[in-house]
């Protein structure tokens, strides 16, 4: 939606633009991609963008696992949703970088961790490809049409706030990000019928129960905090947790939460009969 809104703003300024998403899993939390091409001439290329002039990162936890700037042109710019300043961000090479704390802006103005409109404001500031005024216009129209006028205006305000708060600088280039290892068996090693038994490879566990190595804490905007004094050990949170992050310590009669697997849904806090659990911001 943000990619389309941006394209629309560019078109309104008299340019040509195309926007399209990368087709992937229809599920929350999965990393997704969307592309926008803007030109003053007619655009004939319909492929994905491999060497962009600008990369927009909506979630800075991706920086730890994916080399987001690998295809970026040397004179290009990376726009990142982060609370850090550009010089504190390590992208593996020194490159033009703009940062904005879009999640705080979104929580403040939209009351929800939806950052796509705010980050558009940062994009306008960092690149100057579109004017913030035309961006506001197209956000108001596009979001207002679908979600009501008030929401449209609030999203436009989020973009404007982000535009004003964006910091532009250079990133650091110290860390070497290794590509994530994958288990790539040869055809002889491939099990018959795709059946798998528990195993360990260079790339980590495979087979039954191997999802335990998949840390999903990056999904969470909030995380639960339990008040031990108030807790009556009814175990409802343990029962309801869809992730299995809450463990019982049987010999002490206590509970323990493993935040590595918490996605911050808030079911435990909502269902706690004595209100012993409250949700707090996960990464501030």
């Amino acid at each position, binding site marked *: 939606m943000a990619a389309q809104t941006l394209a629309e703003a560019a078109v309104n300024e008299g340019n040509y633009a195309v926007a399209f998403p990368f087709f992937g899993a229809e*599920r929350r939390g999965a990393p997704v991609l969307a592309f926008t091409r803007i030109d003053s001439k007619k655009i004939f290329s319909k492929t994905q963008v491999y060497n962009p002039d600008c990369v927009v990162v909506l979630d800075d936890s991706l920086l730890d696992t994916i080399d987001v700037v690998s295809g970026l042109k040397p004179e290009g710019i990376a726009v990142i949703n982060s609370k850090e300043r550009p010089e504190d961000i390590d992208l593996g090479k020194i490159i033009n970088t703009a940062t904005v704390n879009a999640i705080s802006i979104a929580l403040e103005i939209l009351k929800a961790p939806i950052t796509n409109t705010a980050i558009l404001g940062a994009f306008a500031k960092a690149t100057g490809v579109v004017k913030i005024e035309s961006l506001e216009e197209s956000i108001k129209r596009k979001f207002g049409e679908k979600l009501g006028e008030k929401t449209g205006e609030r999203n436009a305000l989020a973009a404007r706030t982000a535009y004003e708060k964006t910091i532009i600088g250079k990133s650091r280039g110290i860390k070497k990000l290794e590509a994530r290892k994958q288990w790539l068996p040869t055809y002889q090693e491939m099990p018959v019928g795709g059946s798998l038994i528990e195993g360990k490879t260079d790339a980590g566990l495979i087979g039954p129960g191997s999802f*335990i190595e*998949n840390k999903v804490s990056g999904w969470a905007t909030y995380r639960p905090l339990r008040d031990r004094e108030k807790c009556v050990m009814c175990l409802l949170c343990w029962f309801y947790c869809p992730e299995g992050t809450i463990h019982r310590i049987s010999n002490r009669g206590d509970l323990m939460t493993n935040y590595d697997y918490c996605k911050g849904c808030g079911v435990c806090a909502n269902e706690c009969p004595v209100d012993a659990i409250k949700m707090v911001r996960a990464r501030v």
Partner: protein
Amino acid sequence: MITIKELPDENLFTAGHTACPGCGVAMSIRNAIRVLGKDTAVYVPASCGVVFGTTFPYGAWKVPFFHTAFENTGACLTGMQAAFEKKGKKVTVVGFAGDGGTYDIGLQSMSGAAERNDDVLYICLDNEAYMNTGIQRSGGTPFGAWTTTTPVGKHIQGNRRFKKNLGDIVVAHEIPYYATLSIGQPLDFIRKVEKAKNIRGFRFLHMFTPCIPGWKMDPARTVEVTKRAVESGMWTLYEVENGEKRITYKPGKMKSVKDYLMMQGRFRHMSDEDINALQMWVCKKWNLHYKEKGSPDICEIAPPEEHHAVTEEHREMHGP
């Protein structure tokens, strides 16, 4: 009967799976497998359950797991059970199919297994649409609900058909055990899964599992919404054992269905006329299940309570 405290702590469906935050299916699967224990073999047809539970070569299951096509849950369970029997192993063979894989696509296969009365446990995770492929209408979608194939337009708003009565279709096969479950009633949930585990023959558990993106709701309210569904009569908790029906939980006073609907974005467009039509359907269902013989029909709709769960802000944020 097992209580919550007596359930084992071991995760047979491990953490780190990739379901959406607050997923009702993940919740139901976890707790069902907790009760069923490790002598279980699982079959899952094409559904969210297979996407978030196993992404080759990774998997969250710690019990034998099998997956092939969409429409053959019943047939696969039969085959697995036959193989275990031949090998002389005592294993609970259980299939977790979605509502699409049971109401529409897998109906013939399920019917075959039920007719043969094979010794398998069939679990239907009913989230009322094809959620895995991006929210398309299924036979289980209730009246008025928005899906991508029943969009909200000027003339027609949402699904025009009522939810299929799968319970009666399954019970008509004269199977030993059929029960409806909701994660909002934990003790009832555990008791029914345990009971189904210990009965021989074709057993069918029908679970009500909210879907956060498909129902367009707040992830923290997964359990709350199932409770409201039961209180309003949209979902009824009962079991049929050898043809004898027993209501396992009867809500006190019938709550207006509007309370339940307004928690979810998929119903928020509904006109008063449509809500009344759905309310009439619920009343009919309520009287069918809860009314005692000879007593008058109940359909007193109290004026809807002031509802705090969905604020104006929330509505704007998540759209109509």
